[in-house]
């Protein structure tokens, strides 16, 4: 502030008008520094600007100082918009002064105007400029003045609509046209840019003759020596062509459009890349071009005039050679930007003319071989638009190249190719078959694209009814030949071919009687995959009913299936799905009991898969149930495995260790299911408890001599069960055995026999207990810092769902190879209700290792209060077993020193 004060001192004196005061360079630069410094106070700025403005008239004799003062003012105007008006009104009188002064004034005006908001900028100029002034400045002999007034005009014309006009449209256009003949290329370019701007802004408002006049001038300039002038001129020719094509005046415009088109074509061979890009962009804008000229642009050879009408003969001499092969040169260009631009405009014209489309498809297909991916994508885009307009006529010679795209490296290209295939009409059965095969190859190589591939196959089958019927018959024959249960049909190719076959019956209800019934039955197991691919076209339920109706499967319960109305899976469907799974689980259990573990495993695995697929478009509530069931099935899978081992135990060698591992897994899975859900029914709770009893029985029988602890545990569970409902046979049996003090092991088989495993139902009220963890300000790129040996803080966002106040939650933190650290989470610190609790807290991690960097794993665990009592006391951690509630998060640390 002291500095500011000292600088203000000499300037404030100028406020007392002292006509003799002259700014020297030093004070000007001080003023500049003050004005540009963002911390200068408003008052100082105002007084500085005032004194500068006051001194302007006195400086008029010294052109250098004056222009410097003006440039200082111009620089400060954008920073202090409030001052603009006063600056502008002060410089108004100077505009007609000496050459240097007026150019300085103009540049100051320009910088003020550009810094203002749209309307303010041009209204400032309107207040100063008028027609006479503009004309006199525009005809000045000084380059600087001309260039600045031109730039001002270009600026104004861009905001032509939203401001008062100081020039009529006609004068404006005339001024620009005059500048297109200037000897300075920069001015020529700016003038053309201004005209383009004018035409775009005043698009519909201008008279027909304006674009015509502009076109004439632009054509004169496309041969300019300067590259930038040529670029601008070509752009303007394109723009005029576009406008003239759009305007209706009742005259046939083909001739005029042809001339414009050929004129632009002649620029396709320019040596400048920029000009070529602009030329092809412009070609895309010119519509209504005659077929003959378009065809000529695809052939380097001059086409004979025998196939055309009058217009060609007229064009023959002058313009036709210019158009010759323009597009060929474009797509063969060395620079990919040019090729891309050529490709785009080729696509635009191809959509509008069938004859042109037939020829241009050759070149677009050839571009699939281009080395630049963006060109290939552009070509695909053009082909897609052609296909959408129905003018894509694929010939046999293109097929190899096109189908090659389906196995292209780039997923974008593959996607683009499939998009076109969905619309394509293939001429021959062989091509159809090879297309299907290529799509299958695509599927085998990139299985993650199954959805898209199936949809393409479906569209392909739908569009080619006859061909797909042919394929269907072949497939049916193949199926008949092979024995049942042949695994060759489990391949993805089978699924893909089935999609093709069912497409046309499904979409149009045609071919139904002709399509072999067996195919529909084979398609049923693929329902989930097919319906995912056809999302938005058919819903799953419709698909299922359709397939079942036409297949030879007798499945009565299909009538019970509810109608699916909205997207997503309704509750009713969920119930039936759960019922089905519950039933399958029951089946599997009876197989387990019958020591048929392998078959049970198969059933359970398919149930898992089904759950996975369904959960993809299930609602949030349904997901909880599905999640529960998948966890439940996992437990059954483990039990099945253990059961197998127990069977073997008597006969051959028995790995007690692996057994323990399995039991440990089972135990933790059970813990997880017990403590991750809440709100279940009595039946479910009983069942889960019984399962846990079963696990205990396994452990029991393994230990051979059961400890009292275990017995106590068992009894407590049984009494818990008694409290909830009446005991099942299984529990009764255990109770009896314990009371009789007989060996459980001996009776393991009989115990398993009485264990029932079915009847689980959809529980609407079930809610997940879960936690979300977010580490603030940390990722592997920007780790948190720590001092080795000292505690480090981790800022965490914790969200808990459905936890009760009696739950004991811990934060579990571990560094690899060390004992974990637990931090108790006091639920009273959290905000919110039982449903959702939230909290952000800084958790300390105490034992930071003496290394440069390390990572810790953090997760939230819940203490399983009804489980075994564990010895974790001395660490100050949980006393009971724990189970995870959140996903494990990695937190990265790097030592302060290593930074």
């Amino acid at each position: 502030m002291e500095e500011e004060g000292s600088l203000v001192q000499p300037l404030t004196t100028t406020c007392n008008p002292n006509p003799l005061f002259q700014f020297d360079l030093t004070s000007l630069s001080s003023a500049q520094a003050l004005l540009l410094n963002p911390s200068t106070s408003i008052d100082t700025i105002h007084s500085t600007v005032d004194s500068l403005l006051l001194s302007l008239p006195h400086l008029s004799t010294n052109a250098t100082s004056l222009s410097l003062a003006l440039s200082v003012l111009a620089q400060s105007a954008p920073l202090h918009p409030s001052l603009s008006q006063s600056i502008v009104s002060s410089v108004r009188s100077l505009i007609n002064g000496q050459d240097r002064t007026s150019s300085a004034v103009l540049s100051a005006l320009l910088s003020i105007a550009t810094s203002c908001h749209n309307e303010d900028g041009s209204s400032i100029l309107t207040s100063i400029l008028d027609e006479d002034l503009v004309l006199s400045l525009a005809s000045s002999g000084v380059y600087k003045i001309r260039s600045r007034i031109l730039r001002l005009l270009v600026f104004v014309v861009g905001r032509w609509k939203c401001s008062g006009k100081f020039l009529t449209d006609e004068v404006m256009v005339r001024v620009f046209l005059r500048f297109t003949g200037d000897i300075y290329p920069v001015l020529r370019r700016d003038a053309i840019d201004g005209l383009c701007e004018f035409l775009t802004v005043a698009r519909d408002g201008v008279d027909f003759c304006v674009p015509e006049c502009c076109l004439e001038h632009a054509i004169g300039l496309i041969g300019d020596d300067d590259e930038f002038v040529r670029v601008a001129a070509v752009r303007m020719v394109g723009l005029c062509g576009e406008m003239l094509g759009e305007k209706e005046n009742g005259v046939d415009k083909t001739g005029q459009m042809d001339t414009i088109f050929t004129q632009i074509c002649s620029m396709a061979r320019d040596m400048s890349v920029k000009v070529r890009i602009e030329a092809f962009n412009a070609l895309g804008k010119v519509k209504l071009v005659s077929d003959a000229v378009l065809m000529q642009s695809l052939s380097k050879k001059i086409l004979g005039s025998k196939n055309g009408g009058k217009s060609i003969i007229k064009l023959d001499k002058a313009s036709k050679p210019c158009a010759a092969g323009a597009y060929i040169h474009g797509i063969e260009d060395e620079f990919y930007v040019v090729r891309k631009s050529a490709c785009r405009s080729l696509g635009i014209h191809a959509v509008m003319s069938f004859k042109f489309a037939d020829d241009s498809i050759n070149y677009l297909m050839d571009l699939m071989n281009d080395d630049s991916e963006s060109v290939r994508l552009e070509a695909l885009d053009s082909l897609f638009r052609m296909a959408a307009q129905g003018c894509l006529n694929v010939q046999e010679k293109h097929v190899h190249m096109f189908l090659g795209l389906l196995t292209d490296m780039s997923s974008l290209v593959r996607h683009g190719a499939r998009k076109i295939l969905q619309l394509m009409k293939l001429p021959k059965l062989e091509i159809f078959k090879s297309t299907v095969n290529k799509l299958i190859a695509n599927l085998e190589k990139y299985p993650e694209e199954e959805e898209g591939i199936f949809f393409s196959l479906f569209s392909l089958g739908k569009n080619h009814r006859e061909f797909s019927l042919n394929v269907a018959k072949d497939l049916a024959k193949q199926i008949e030949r092979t024995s049942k249960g042949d695994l060759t049909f489990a391949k993805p190719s089978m699924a893909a071919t089935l999609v093709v076959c069912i497409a046309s019956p499904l979409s149009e209800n045609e071919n139904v009687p002709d399509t072999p019934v067996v195919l529909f039955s084979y398609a049923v197991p693929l329902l989930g995959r097919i319906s995912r691919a056809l999302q938005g076209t058919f819903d799953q339920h419709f698909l299922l009913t359709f397939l079942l109706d036409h297949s030879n499967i007798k499945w009565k319960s299909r009538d019970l299936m509810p109608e699916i109305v909205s997207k997503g899976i309704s509750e009713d469907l969920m119930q039936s799905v759960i019922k089905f799974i519950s039933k399958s689980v029951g089946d599997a259990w009876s197989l387990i009991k019958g020591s048929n573990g392998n078959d049970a495993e198969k059933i359970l695995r398919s149930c898992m898969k089904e759950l996975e697929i369904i959960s993809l478009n299930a609602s949030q509530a349904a997901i909880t149930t599905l999640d529960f069931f998948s966890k439940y099935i996992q437990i059954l899978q483990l039990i099945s495995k253990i059961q197998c081992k127990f069977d073997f135990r008597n006969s051959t060698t028995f790995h007690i260790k692996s057994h323990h591992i399995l039991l440990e897994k089972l135990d933790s899975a059970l813990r997880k299911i017990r403590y991750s859900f809440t709100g279940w029914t009595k039946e479910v709770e009983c069942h889960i408890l019984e399962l846990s009893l079963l696990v205990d029985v396994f452990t029991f029988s393994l230990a051979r001599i059961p400890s009292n602890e275990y017995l106590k545990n068992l009894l407590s569970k049984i009494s818990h069960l008694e409290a909830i409902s009446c005991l099942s046979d299984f529990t009764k049996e255990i109770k009896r055995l314990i009371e009789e003090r007989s060996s459980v092991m001996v009776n393991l088989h009989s115990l398993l026999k009485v264990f029932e495993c079915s009847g689980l139902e959809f529980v609407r009220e079930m809610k997940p207990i879960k936690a979300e963890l977010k580490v603030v300000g940390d990722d592997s790129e920007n780790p948190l810092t720590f001092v080795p040996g000292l505690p480090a803080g981790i800022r965490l966002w914790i969200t808990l769902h459905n936890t009760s106040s009696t739950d004991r939650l811990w934060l579990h933190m571990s560094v690899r190879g060390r004992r974990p650290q637990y931090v108790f989470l006091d639920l009273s610190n959290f905000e919110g209700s039982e449903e959702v609790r939230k909290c952000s807290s800084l958790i300390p991690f105490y034992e930071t290792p003496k290394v440069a960097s390390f990572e810790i794993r953090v997760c939230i665990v819940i203490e399983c209060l009804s489980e075994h009592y564990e010895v974790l006391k001395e660490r100050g951690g949980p006393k009971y077993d724990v189970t995870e509630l959140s996903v494990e998060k990695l937190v990265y640390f790097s030592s302060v020193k290593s930074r």
Partner: protein
Amino acid sequence: MAIQCLILGAGQEVGKSCVVAMIGGKKIMFDCGMHMGFSDHRAFPDFSLLSSSNDISCVVITHFHLDHIGALPYFTEVCGYNGPIYMTYPTKALAPLMLEDYRKILVDRRGLEEQYTYENIIHCMNKVIPIDIKQTIQVDKDLLIRAYYAGHVLGAAMIYAQVGEEKMLYTGDYNMTPDRHLGAAQIDRLSLDLLITESTYATTVRDSKYLREREFLKAVHTCVAAGGKVLIPTFALGRAQELCILLDDYWERMNINVPIYFSAGLTIQANMYYKMLIGWTSQKIKDSYTVRNPFDFKHVCPFERSMINLPGPCVLFATPGMISGGFSLEVFKQWAPSDKNLIAIPGYCVAGTIGHKLMSGKPTRIDLDKDTRIDVRCQIHQLTFSPHTDSKGIMDLVEFLSPKHVILVHGEKPKMAALKQRIESELGIQCEYPANNETVLVPTTQSLKISASKTFVRNCTTELDGDERIAEGILVMEKGHNAKIVSEEEFLETIGAERNVVSFTGWVSPLAQ
């Protein structure tokens, strides 16, 4: 003033390109090539037509092909020219290899007498001054030359020469459509007095290269997909790299795992030059160079003789081209009898070679000599890739440059005549195609700086006639003074004359018919 052109070679023929142009009093020799069809004195340009080999200001060589450089050691070492010689960096690097290779073939294989020795070549190349693209070289006080990119082969250039106001361009061989590994010719807008252009394909209009590429790739892909082997006999420089980039790209995109081999002798050296001279290749290569050198082919591995009969598909590039002997013939013998295999022949084959036999009809057996007979059951694919511009390209270049005169060289007479006709009728530019040893005189315009008197300028600005400004004045040229344009009054003042007005009255008899 005029430019005087002496066509020493490549006049109405292809071979021994050599043009001596006298521009503004300076003699420049463009190219100094030999004719591959002759081995006697006709192989070289007739240097005796030059009054003295040392009144030539400089020799400029456009590229390393023998028909453009073959006679250079002879001219410098035997004829005794010792002025400056200019060529681009790649040409300087590759030319000695080409010259020595040819000298060896001439002496060792054909047993002919050599025109110059190995030492001659080395000595000659030592005198060469390398130039870069768009580098302007002031040869002496008046003469400047500049090189422009010409495509065609690695290091090919078009040469621009200027003395005072007289400007000319000698194109050498050039290509207006880009390859995968070389760019298209690139030139500025120059207001030329004379353009000397090649006209190899004076009447041919070539189709899109994509078609050829597509067919080639399809043939190769189908063959390897069916487990066949593909043999591509090529020469070391140019086509081999072009096709290899094409295949390597395709392999990459289509995820093909079939190996591509280069026979050992061929590429190690050639690819090394390409890798070093990246700046002279196409835009695509320059773009991708920042990530990876495109001449470090991903799918290419070196080939060993023992691998010829290994099972499984592969693609092999083998030297020499045209299957004229050597390694490519050895492989051909092994692979030709299987109908699964493919022989792809890029480019032209000289009569008498196996390549030529394969291209002209599909023979079922080839008798190599009286004891060896090869059954040919393999497929044959012919590719036509040419690094020369076609007639459309020539016309485009002429149109773009719009010179005052055009001279056609390096072409066949009837085709040149047709092209001359087109240039004259369509573009309105005078055109000639002189034969060897003919001299052509091309008039040039000379521009002269004149000053204008103030009165004249004032008159100009005031006498406005609509949009057009017409001013009348009198040009005064005096010895020892600058030319000056003055107004009528001033002129009268200077010569001290008075203005007299003579008026006439005419009448026409209405009866006169």
